[in-house]
């Protein structure tokens, strides 16, 4: 492999992959370097999965601009990349007469930000569209352009599309040093040095560390942990919109929303922590999530929890997205402080950064570029004749492996074989939902391990949960050893 590229992107989360896809429109060589075994392993995998309307961010900020533009781009992008997305609208609920002004302020902010279609609803109007809303509701800000998305597919699809247009990916590779040398950048990963004309720092919670390797103007990111609870699909329809409390300076508060797959999700908390790599769920966090959830909705069956998880937001001290060429570092571009609404903003960040970089490097658009990328075929979503045809041709699409989510062997094989395919149980899970249901992989994980072992041609005891040393089994039993 030639180690020289036009552009190196550090980080294969939604930001890095969105930039990669946009850059793949241009005639240039791009390498994405990721420290984990797969795309979507950091902040991008553990968040609310919300596409925000854009009334939260302070007018004039990059957060506001990127949110609005991202929201605008999202429906088209989801069409092109086959990403589950439902524009169900959001409600910011006021439950205390004394705070009514806050809703007016938010509305005004949304108007300045040019959020389309917002309305302030009366208590009665809220109850009419959201029957399980708290009886304390005073009014709510309704924004029809908010929605829910599959964050995994968003990230994976952006990467797959970039890859099909020539972007290379290097996983399990950690950047240890970056140097400017003779007009190019040398990116050191310990066992190799890669050369690039431009570097894009999309390293999530580690983006300050990467930035500080090259710039004297230091940045500082605080990992802000958020705990969530995911509830069973049997509660589908309990809430119909993304329901937020009124925001505070720590964020948008604990929301309750259906996911795009029909689960209900509640969370997140917001706790500043030290570690950028470990986000443990805490008992206090789960209590806070539960308390927060029941403030805005009544009768939510929190006992239907199927899993709890927590994620980290990359909160930069300035509280703003930093999307620019770093001071005094020509060709080194930062995407730093990409916390909420980062998921919403990623298509816009991709567009914006690609324009900065392409201008800097005087890149030309390719003649041919394929922006379309289909998801794993899901037999359960096909019309019955098409499903029949598929199973006749590929019988593995008739063999259910994950009972809870009705995921077939065909889907798992596809997830493994496709470009940038799954290499671990979590990789399969994020691409197919096998193991994401109510038994949480209790039944299917041994079978998914079998399929991974067969498809990848590796021993079953080398299969991992999520790469590295996360091996599922430790060796053979006595009889088999």
């Amino acid at each position, binding site marked *: 492999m030639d180690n020289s590229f036009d552009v190196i992107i550090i980080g294969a989360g939604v930001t890095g992959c969105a930039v990669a896809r946009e850059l793949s429109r241009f005639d240039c060589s791009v390498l994405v370097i990721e420290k984990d075994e797969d795309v979507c392993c950091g902040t991008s995998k553990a968040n609310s999965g919300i596409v925000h309307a854009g009334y939260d961010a302070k007018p004039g900020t990059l957060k506001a601009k990127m949110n609005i533009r991202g929201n605008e781009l999202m429906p088209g992008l989801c069409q092109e990349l086959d990403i589950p997305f439902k524009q169900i609208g959001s409600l910011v609920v006021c439950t205390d007469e004394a705070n009514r002004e806050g809703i007016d302020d938010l509305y005004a902010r949304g108007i300045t930000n040019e959020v389309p279609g917002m309305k302030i609803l009366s208590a009665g109007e809220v109850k009419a569209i959201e029957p399980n809303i708290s009886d304390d509701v005073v009014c709510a800000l309704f924004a029809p352009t908010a929605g829910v998305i599959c964050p995994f597919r968003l990230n994976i699809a952006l990467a797959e599309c970039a890859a099909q247009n020539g972007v290379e990916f290097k996983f399990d590779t950690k950047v240890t040093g970056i140097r400017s040398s003779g007009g190019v950048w040398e990116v050191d990963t310990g066992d190799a040095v890669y050369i690039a004309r431009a570097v894009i720092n999309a390293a999530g919670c580690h983006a300050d560390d990467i930035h500080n390797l090259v710039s004297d103007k230091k940045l500082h990111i605080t990992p802000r942990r958020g705990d969530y*609870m*995911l509830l069973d699909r*049997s509660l589908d329809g309990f809430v119909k919109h993304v329901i937020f409390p009124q925001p505070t300076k720590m964020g948008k508060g604990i929301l309750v929303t259906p996911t795009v797959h029909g689960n209900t999700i509640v969370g997140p908390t917001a706790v500043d922590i030290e570690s950028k*790599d*470990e*986000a*443990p*769920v*805490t*008992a206090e*966090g*789960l209590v806070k999530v539960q308390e927060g959830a029941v403030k805005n909705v009544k009768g939510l069956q929190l006992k239907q*929890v*199927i*899993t*709890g*998880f927590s994620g980290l937001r990359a909160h930069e001290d300035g509280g703003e997205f930093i999307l620019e060429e770093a001071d005094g570092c020509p060709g080194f571009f930062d995407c730093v402080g990409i916390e909420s609404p980062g998921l919403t903003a990623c298509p816009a960040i991709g567009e914006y950064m690609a324009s900065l970089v392409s201008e800097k490097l005087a890149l030309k658009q390719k003649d041919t570029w394929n922006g379309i990328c289909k998801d794993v075929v899901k037999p359960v979503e096909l019309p*019955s004749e098409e*499903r*029949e045809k598929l*199973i*006749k041709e590929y*019988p*593995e*699409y*008739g*063999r*259910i492996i994950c*009972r*809870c989510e*009705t995921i077939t062997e065909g889907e798992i094989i596809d997830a493994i074989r496709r470009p940038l395919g799954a290499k671990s149980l979590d990789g399969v899970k994020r691409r197919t939902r096998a193991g994401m249901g*109510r*038994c*949480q*992989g*209790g*039944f299917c*994980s*041994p079978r998914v*391990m*079998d399929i991974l072992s067969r498809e990848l041609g590796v021993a*079953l*005891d080398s299969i*991992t*949960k*999520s790469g*590295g*040393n*996360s*091996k*599922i*089994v*430790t*060796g*053979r*039993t*006595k*009889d*088999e050893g």
Partner: protein
Amino acid sequence: MKADIVIVGGGPAGLAAAIAAAKEDSNLNILILERDRELGGILNQCIHNGFGLHTFNEELTGPEYAARFEEQLDGLGIRYMLDTMVLDVASSVVTAVNSKEGVFTVDCGAVVLCMGCRERPRGALNIPGLRPAGVFTAGTAQRLVNIEGFMPGKEVVILGSGDIGLIMARRMTLEGAKVKAVCELMPYSGGLKRNIVQCLDDFDIPLLLSHTVIDIKGKERVTSVVIAEVDEKSKPVPGTEQEIACDTLLLSCGLIPENELSRSAGVKINPATNGPVVNESFETSIPGVFACGNVLHVHDLVDYVSEESGRAGRSAARFVKANKAEEGPVINIKNGNGVRYTVPSFVRLNELEDDLVIRFRSGNVYKDSYINVLFDGETKLHRRKQIITPGEMEQVILKKEELSGAPSEILIEITEN
């Protein structure tokens, strides 16, 4: 496709129901739909012995017990389809999918639900901590060890004292792993006494009652868990934390009947069992839809599953022939003091076979207590029991003639004297 009776699930319940139905009426066309690659269900991974004491008067392993039933299928003309997942159940049509037939429907006269249960996963237990590899439900670990031939880990802590957890404590020990402790949130064990003796005591594995796991550590693979004592409200007691180095945490914290199909079919569910409400014939709230085994309520002993499923199978066979129940008195069975639930919930006297077996579980531990059966308030049975615990299912058996007076209500209760 057509069948007189479709049996959803080919584990112990489905096998016994199918066989009993075929024996009731040899002309019936019976079809078992099994989602796994072999019949026998979870019995296949239960390679320990202790099965069949009631049914065959001998101790068999799980696969041997299943084989006793499987070998009868051909002779009775019972058909089965493997690797076949049922997608939808209605009273006279079942929709399923497999790799050979694609999505197909079976028109049928009766359905017997035998889907078994699943284990409560980590996520449903709200255990704090990181999410590394090395956290398994006990049944998943059992499958890995006994079917796949792989070890889930070397140093093990088990949370929950359900039977599968106890069995796996012994199994992992025999395979050379070190089981450091079994923690149980409740002040009593969730499993059978005999399993505590044979699987823990015999191997010097400590059972820590009123303990739980409050943290899981390790980024990629489990490196330790933190356990703590809990108070009577199940809240961890500060100062009692203890970190145990281990690479594996097994969970045996309860089984949940798999009633997603039943629910979408509209079957009425008993919140105490998470299984269908059934009558003496194991018929659910939908006529012609029957349920038995662990999908109905979680059992300790497979022998009872077989016995109960036999009744369900015979009832289904009779339903296909008669297509309606005889009119007659209905007796409601009520939970009295200390009784969490009963199966069945009510009895139609004219449909009852020779006797009525009422199975139930207590909500707490009772020592030197009595099980009482009252007919319309009048004590009919007053039986002393040395110990009654939630981990062991209780039963009372009433002869049909004892019920001839047709009480309107049978109450089961536990009292101290």
